[in-house]
């Protein structure tokens, strides 16, 4: 019983981490209709900036994370404004090409700046150690991730549900023309959403550096999982991404315990299972 509970707890912390990454992806898709391949690269950039500020320059971990999130969010907004905006009127395949091109560009840029070798800084002192859960040590770091994940969920819910900005975003998402006719500055809404989504990618990346080395192309592994989760949850649906992350995180964790032979297959089995019952995803329209 304790084994099961502990494995579930580990799964929950994995889930919260997956949530951080898939939230940004699904928000951008939900509002802008852009499938942002470069999300993984923004994740990587957040990790590299976090590593540089915390691991090399010696800033406190929290400050390094905040600064990386801010910088990548600004970069995201700039990309939306400078590169994506001219493509909105064109066929969506141009957006895919552009974001995919960004992946290649940012990966190579990372290689030039930080080299091809992976980097990993020491764990911040306050994240070392563990609490005892179900008779076994449960790392502070995992606990911290769960906390951040829940805070982000709460923050996003408040922002979308309780603020004027959130209403503007939802209005824009459901009908772009009507929203702008009502006086909402939709271009500004788009930029702000990209700012937010990119910041979330960077948050996942920067928070990961104490336990996951960063290297060029590291975003590629993350983006596949994030895509699967958004598909499970229903593309563009934030609640879906949250539930999808929980499903994938917790079920995979139990899968590793019970059916280690089928490890590779879990996440796809979950996706297939969900899509068979609900082709539009759990919370899809």
């Amino acid at each position: 019983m304790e084994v099961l509970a502990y494995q579930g707890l580990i799964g929950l912390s994995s889930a919260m981490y997956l949530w951080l990454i898939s939230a940004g992806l699904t928000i951008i898709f939900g509002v802008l209709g852009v499938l942002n391949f470069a999300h993984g690269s923004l994740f990587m950039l957040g990790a590299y900036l976090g590593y540089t500020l915390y691991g090399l320059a010696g800033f406190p971990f929290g400050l390094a994370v905040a600064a990386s999130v801010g910088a990548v969010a600004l970069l995201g907004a700039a990309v939306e404004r400078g590169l994506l905006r001219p493509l909105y009127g064109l066929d969506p395949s141009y957006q895919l090409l552009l974001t995919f091109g960004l992946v290649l560009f940012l990966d190579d840029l990372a290689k030039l700046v930080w080299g091809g070798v992976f980097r990993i800084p020491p764990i911040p002192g306050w994240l070392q150690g563990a609490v005892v859960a179900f008779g076994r040590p449960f790392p502070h770091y995992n606990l911290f991730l769960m906390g951040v994940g829940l805070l982000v969920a709460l923050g996003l819910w408040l922002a979308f549900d309780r603020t004027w900005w959130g209403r503007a975003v939802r209005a824009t998402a459901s009908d772009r023309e009507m929203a702008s006719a009502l006086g909402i500055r939709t271009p500004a809404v788009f930029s702000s959403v990209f700012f937010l989504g990119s910041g979330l990618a960077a948050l996942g990346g920067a928070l990961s550096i104490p336990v996951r080395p960063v290297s060029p192309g590291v975003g590629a592994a993350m983006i596949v999982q994030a895509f699967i989760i958004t598909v499970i949850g229903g593309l563009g649906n934030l609640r879906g991404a949250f539930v999808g992350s929980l499903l994938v995180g917790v079920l995979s964790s139990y899968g590793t315990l019970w059916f280690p032979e089928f490890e590779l297959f879990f996440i796809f089995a979950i996706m297939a299972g969900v899509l068979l019952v609900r082709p539009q995803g759990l919370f899809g329209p």
Partner: protein
Amino acid sequence: MASGPHADYGRQIEMGAQLAIEEINAAGGILGCRLEMRFMDDENRPAVGVRNARFLVTEWGAHFLYGTDSSGVAMALGPVLRELDRIQFFTHAATHRLTEELVAQQKIKQIVRVSAPVYQDAVAAWLFRDRRDVRRWATIGADYEYGYATWAIFREQMRRLRPDVEFVGAAWAPFLTTDFSPHIAAVMATNPDGIIATPWAGEAVTLLRQALLQGVFDRIKVWFQAMGGSVDVLEGISPEVKEGRFQGKLYATARYLHNWPNTETNRSFVSRFAKRWNRMPNYSAETTYSAVYITKAAVEKARSLQTDRVIAALQGMRIETPAGLRVFRSEDHQFVYAVPAGKVVWDPRYPIAVLGELKVFDPKDYWRWPPFRPLELSK
């Protein structure tokens, strides 16, 4: 492989080859001919590796090929090498099938392997043979052939040496796993005394970091990180080793260790390499460096570039290399040499963590030898 999280192995292959070529050219080349190299990234994809090989041989005019990190790419290259009739010296890909199946069985003579194959991981059984307190073994394995092969040969050797041990748990992590915490939790639920882990490169660093966080080293007696003696892994875990966080329980091996053997050949190679590249040489650098010198010896003996003549010149070859004496095994074109295993320690003489308390075993004891019985792979 020169892109992605495992790119450093490709980079080290390039650095090793480059150094050998510069040295050989400075000393007058091979039979008076200067060497040239063209380096290509296979992106860890068999189709790209095959395309590169065809391009290098038919367009660029390569006489010999070197490298290849992934076993999957290596297995795809095998038949193509026969068709192109060019020898490739494999300097990292570790699957036993490359030499046992493609060379010994299918007679693809164009395959030669200079690096120690997956057999090397069986050294763990010998290393812990006398640890009577380590009875319960589990694996956190790479979820592909390399991980299965290691677990299979380790268990085979261990059963022979220590009939009292039990194999209690296994968790399998696919390529590019970044979150090992479910695997660690699942394996620790089986209360192992020892863990043998096969994720490599950055994944090994990730795994060890996450194992430390889950307090694994307070509860186990030994952890064998198979390719943990790789320079990039040692660089990645250096801070924790320095602080003693692994409590002297972390052991590893590799396909070459820069601090062994203590011979003039090796010391001089390491210092030249470090001077040229400002890094310590990893195994893929040494194996490729040695492969170029093996080519030189073979071509000078054969006085020809023809595959048959060069292969004939390789027969019976015993050659002193930085990793020590390498002996050509004619049945499967595998160079045999010993690599020690040891404890991961901090030694102030080196800029990064190293393997210490090294134990060397005879490959006669722990490698697989012809005639090869098929290895039963199971998870």
